């Protein structure tokens, strides 16, 4: 059998691929039909609310995967991943702002906030921002570049563990303050909002939404397979080895800096892409996304789901954000208790997260049986 086939079989067994197929069917067939074909009022109708909500959560899931790659598999906890996410979002946002054209409050060619600050021409950051391909380039390049430069210096000077976490936090915090300033040229505190069109399609129509939804789904599955490929490759084993005994890896003759740098940058790029998919669906990007709290939450999704397992990351993102969306209405006064306690319980009693729970319990039983 050919190399591709071997890769395929190595990635997942039959059941795995079947499950993936089912997910793909849900994402690309069921939901679109449920939303577009089936009329409202029918119980099978899937409302746009669900489409956007699940779309949003899938973006988060992609971020969680990125975080799991770097934290779960390489043992590097980043408290600054919100920054890369936001950068991707801003890159996309700039393009969307240009797409608004003359339909803003001021009916001008430039985005409202620029008209308002009476800027006469676009600042340099906005060069070429009306080109979609350029936006896509930025989505990938900006997080990649920042991550690479930052990571290069950080890893070369052997910054480890908590130190690394703290300075990534400082990084995203500084970036947030920077983006809050109106002079920075990205709409200050309000950021970008009120988008109208993407690639000429009206952004609010159900079709566009479903399309975005499907693309996000594809991105999620793609990321999952990519991550899977990495973690089962020798590279993946080396990353895990770095996590467990970095010095031994070095004495085996591996240049760990390069390995960390590779996975770190990749993870940042994935975040950027997630951000780019997030913005058109949610309809706003602003510096709030860079606040340290958001980045910590990303880590929490992974921990809740189960770090070191890819599915765990996805489940975690789904569970936490789902719970958030649910409880903010079901129990607006008390949802923070629920969330907070969830984190404590998970870290205390479910070190392997939700997906690890089953195995954990089984071990307990078997130990009981043995005793």
């Amino acid at each position, binding site marked *: 059998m050919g190399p591709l086939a071997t890769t395929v079989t190595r990635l*997942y*067994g039959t*059941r*795995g691929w079947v*499950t993936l197929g*089912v*997910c793909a069917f849900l994402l690309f067939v069921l939901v679109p039909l449920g939303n577009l074909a089936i009329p409202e009022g029918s119980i099978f109708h899937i*409302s*746009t*609310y*669900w489409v*956007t*909500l*699940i779309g*949003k959560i899938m973006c988060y899931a992609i971020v969680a995967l990125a975080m799991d790659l770097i934290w779960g598999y390489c043992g590097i906890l980043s408290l600054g991943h919100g920054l890369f996410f936001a950068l991707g979002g801003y890159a996309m946002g700039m393009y969307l702002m240009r797409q608004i054209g003359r*339909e803003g*409050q*001021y009916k001008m060619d430039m985005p409202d*906030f620029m008209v*308002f600050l*009476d800027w006469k021409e676009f600042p340099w950051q906005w060069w070429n921002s009306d080109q979609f391909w350029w936006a896509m380039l930025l989505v990938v390049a900006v997080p990649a570049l920042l991550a690479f430069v930052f990571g290069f210096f950080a890893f070369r000077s052997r910054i480890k563990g908590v130190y690394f976490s703290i300075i990534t936090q400082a990084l995203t915090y500084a970036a947030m303050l920077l983006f*809050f*300033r*109106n002079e920075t040229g990205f709409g*200050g*505190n*309000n*950021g970008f*909002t*009120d*988008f*109208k*069109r993407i690639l000429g399609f*009206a952004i*609010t129509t159900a079709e566009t939404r479903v399309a975005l939804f499907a693309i996000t789904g594809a991105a999620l599955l793609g990321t999952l397979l990519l991550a899977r490929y990495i973690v089962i490759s020798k590279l993946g084993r080396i990353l895990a080895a770095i996590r467990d005994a970095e010095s031994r890896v070095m004495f085996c003759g591996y240049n760990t800096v390069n390995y960390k740098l590779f996975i770190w940058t990749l993870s940042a790029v994935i975040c950027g892409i997630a951000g780019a998919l997030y913005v058109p669906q*949610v*309809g*706003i990007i*602003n510096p*709030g996304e860079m606040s340290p709290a958001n980045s910590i939450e990303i880590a929490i999704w992974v921990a809740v789901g189960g770090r070191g*397992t890819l*599915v*765990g990351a*996805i*489940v975690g993102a*789904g*569970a936490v954000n*789902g719970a*958030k*969306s*649910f409880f*903010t*209405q079901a129990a*607006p*006064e008390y*949802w*923070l208790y629920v969330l907070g306690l969830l984190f404590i319980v998970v870290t205390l009693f479910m070190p392997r997260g*939700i*997906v690890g729970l*089953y195995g954990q319990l089984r071990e307990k039983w078997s130990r009981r049986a043995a005793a």
Partner: protein
Amino acid sequence: MNRRNFVRAIGLSAAITACFASPFAYAQAKTVKVGIMHSLSGTMAISETVLKDVALMAIDEINAKGGVMGAKIQPVVVDPASNWPLFAEKARQLLSQDKVAVTFGCWTSVSRKSVLPVFEELNGLLFYPVQYEGEELSKNVFYTGAAPNQQAIPAVEYLISKDGGGAKRFVLLGTDYVYPRTTNKILRAFLKSKGIAEKDIDEKYTPFGHADYQTIVADIKKFSAGGKTAVISTINGDSNVPFYKELGNQGLKATNVPVVAFSVGEEELRGVDTKPLVGHLAAWNYFMSVKNPANDEFRKKWAAYAKAKKLPGADKPLTNDPMEATYIGIYMWKQAVEKAKTFDVEKVIPAVGGQTFTAPSGFSVKMDEKNHHLHKPVLIGEVKADGQFNVVWKTKGPIKAQPWSPFIAGNDKKKDAPDGKTKI
């Protein structure tokens, strides 16, 4: 990750999704759902929580009197948690899942900007109760707070007047976001028109949650050495306490350098020891201290409600301008519905225009037929030792809002009404 994990995980997430899908829509006869969307957690909870409470109070009141067109109002409270994307999500949820007839909510400009597209897309109806920077009009939004010309401009006029102390130099101090930026931009233009020179205007911004005002206050002192100075503060709610405490401690008295604030009301002063601040000013469309029957009733009702519901701070119940604006908004919507004889947004919107209501401020305020803003009186108050305000100046009557400030270039051509269809 082994396959079993995978399968199990998928099952689990499916379960989660299922638990959302479970319909929590009540099937009562003759009720109408109304959305209340104020942050109950996060940074903005400080200001927004009371608005949720006052809205619930008004709703109880209306229901007690038989509801709207015989339908009991059923409030749907959500917590957007001071998280702007979450605002958008919640707005969509209220409109498309709960099918609310109207929503009362938002405080910060960014939250409003975040939900605006959703309301326009799903053609919902939002009442926005906070003073804001203007430069916006939407068919789907009614602004019951003040536009800049209903708050900032009169305040500055007062400062320039002899009674206001005849200020010659101005420090425009604000938190670095849109509302202060816009307001200060408008004020700059206005001050120029009053013949104040560039060099006599100093514009300063601090980051969100800035807590150390030593340098700022020192600079103000320095600046004030150049001539009779007044400070115009658009500092965001939370930073006000450290700012005022610093003012007091560094001995800047209102008699030397008065500070007029646009986002400091009774609630904000709750956290401050006001004795050193006596004489500093605030401009609003309502003060708790105004004396008139409507306000006495409003205050009494609120005090009673706070006590009954055991709200925190019920020992010292305070009312403020955004609360009044929320209250007005709810009643205006009620009247509009009763006029339109339907909850259908398309029909309610035109009916809201022209509604009048005897507001606690003591004036009969009117919703402009065209521009979706209230005609409001402007009051200027001086801080008293007890944290209340002395009204030292007020307009003869309500004045019309100018969402498009004439002091911003290009606004003269703007038409004073939202475009018919904002959807594309």
